[in-house]
């Protein structure tokens, strides 16, 4: 079994000293620059976000989701049959997303593979592509189509399965499907399961991960481990009983330990983090344990703090390796 330091998802796009992205965005809004000029800035900022993650000591990075307006509408914006509505609070955070409105049958206009190709092209480390999952997309959308909720999840699953297939074609090795919404309604597990099966069938050689956050995964743990994915990732900040539960029940899959608090600026106590890792390590039969922040850190932390958090991820991973 190997230990790897990984980012969860997003990374902050601006800091006090570097506001290129914000300024370019404002210029795009006021039509002072064209979309292509803005994309050049997004390329630069993505490159820097990737470099910072590597500099912090991570083994697996993401593209920082710099191009994502938010975790929900980035996927939906790319769909026929879908419009983007007003702002809504993203779970219990202070961050707002634009709510998709489903008007009819959905289909993709473009692929995320383009974003993956750019990121992997500029990264010295393997890049994990993050995608918000079909259940969460459907749950956070306004459904004005003829399809009922189950059918809408199926449609999203189809779209995301195509995305995963394209990513495999582009050479992606790691894809993470985010499904935070399932923790709010565990009774919908069967709907999620059907969707995950569809995506899994398209994964080819990809190591497919399912990630939940902003809730306690313990009550659903026994069911989640049955899903056809390679890796399961959890937010430990909401789930005090999870380390003991995993230690007791074991895990045949790879495990992502979202153990560094991605929502608070307090720098995590490394000994405390390490103690949790050590407790879980012997129970994992999968090949890899990923140490990660508890959620994407791009929309919740200032960039300086986000960098320090990733350093803690890397340092505790290294220490845990030595204790193996």
């Amino acid at each position, binding site marked *: 079994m190997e230990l790897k330091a990984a980012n969860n998802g997003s990374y902050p796009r601006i*800091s*006090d000293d570097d506001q290129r992205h914000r300024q370019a965005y404002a210029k795009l809004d006021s039509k002072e620059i064209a979309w292509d000029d803005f994309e050049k800035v997004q390329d630069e900022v993505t490159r820097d976000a990737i470099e910072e993650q590597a500099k912090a000591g991570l083994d697996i990075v993401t593209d920082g989701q710099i191009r994502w307006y938010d975790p929900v509408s980035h996927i939906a914006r790319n769909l026929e049959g879908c419009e983007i509505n*007003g702002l809504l609070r993203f779970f219990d955070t202070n*961050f707002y997303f634009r709510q998709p409105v489903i008007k009819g049958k959905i289909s993709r206009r473009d692929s995320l593979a383009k974003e993956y190709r750019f990121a992997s092209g500029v990264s010295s480390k393997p890049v994990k592509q993050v995608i918000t999952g079909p259940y969460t997309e459907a749950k956070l959308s306004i459904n004005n189509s003829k399809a009922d909720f189950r059918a809408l999840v199926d449609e999203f699953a189809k779209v995301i399965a195509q995305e995963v297939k394209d990513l495999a074609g582009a050479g992606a090795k790691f894809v993470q499907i985010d499904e935070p919404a399932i923790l709010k309604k565990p009774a919908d597990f069967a709907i999620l399961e059907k969707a995950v099966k569809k995506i899994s069938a398209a994964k080819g050689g990809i190591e497919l991960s399912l990630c939940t956050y902003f809730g306690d995964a313990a009550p659903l743990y026994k069911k989640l481990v049955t899903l056809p994915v390679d890796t399961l990732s959890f937010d430990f900040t909401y789930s005090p009983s999870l380390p003991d539960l995993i230690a007791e029940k074991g895990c045949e899959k790879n495990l992502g330990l979202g153990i560094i608090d991605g929502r*608070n*600026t307090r720098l995590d106590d490394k000994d405390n983090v390490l103690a949790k890792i050590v407790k879980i390590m012997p129970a994992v039969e999968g090949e890899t344990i990923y140490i990660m922040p508890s959620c994407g850190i791009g929309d919740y932390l200032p960039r300086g703090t986000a960098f320090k958090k990733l350093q803690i991820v890397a340092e505790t991973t290294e220490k845990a390796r030595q204790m193996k």
Partner: protein
Amino acid sequence: MSRSKLKKLGLNLPILPMTSVGSFPKPPYLLEARKKFAAKQMKHADLRELEIRATREWIRKQESLGIDVMVDGEMYRGDMVAYFAENWEGFKTSGLVRSYGNRYYRKPIIVGEVKAKGPLTVDWWKFVQSLTEMPLKGMVTGPYTMMDWLFNEYYPTRRDACLAMAKVIRGEVKSLVKAGAKIIQIDEPAISARPEELPEFAIEAMKDVTKGIDAYFITHICYGAFEFIYPEMLKLSVDNFDLEMSNSGLDLLKLFKKHPFTKDISFGVTDIHTHVIESNELVEQRIRSALEVLKPEQVWVDPDCGLKTRTTEEAIGKLKAISVAVKKIRRELEA
């Protein structure tokens, strides 16, 4: 139902009292002045003068519409959490954090024991109350929302941070009541953020704020995942829940049918997220829907939430629709 409590406090409010949640739009001259002040091109005293002017205008406007319980409109406030954090001890400011799209803000960080430097809102409350004969709400942000919307590097747990906030907020509430405030609103928009924390410590924190203080307490809750916190939330030690009802198509009434709503309610009858000014008839219809499930003595009427994101014209339009609809239904109830 707290009609007797209101009477005891000397508040003779009509049936279906009309009020507002807290904020009103800042007039253009004040927005301009705030920008200048932020850029250090204006003195605080000059800004204050314009805040006073705008507050006077909103008080007159509320009076002319026949609003029964006034708010000051929050002309002096930016963010409801940062305002307190910036004026209390124990905080520092963070780097930039994204709010949505291309919007960023600085979120205060608790870095030490939180303490008040003295009453914060009291002088202003006294001044604004002196402008009107009608009762004026004292307004504070609640302990759970303060805790949830700040970074916390000092207190070991969320519970500890929340209860520490409660202590400081209680001090502010006591000062407001001592100054003569009879109606205190404690804003808790975040209360449903983590439903499991409601019984764990949010109810306790509210009790810590209000216990033994002789006032009529309102708590304002919006963005709520009410299905997870109702009816448990009725245990919060307040007299009146000010709820965003219209944005969700009055869905909450279904919950109230299942489990009776046992307190007073400030029933939001205009959606603050839309530029559309509701017709008098629509507002009337919403009040009538409320009265099918709730007793008239329980119900206050107001917009869903603070109106600061609307234009002045929209805000006044929405208040006017409330005023017309309430007066009509009042006449029927009194007949």
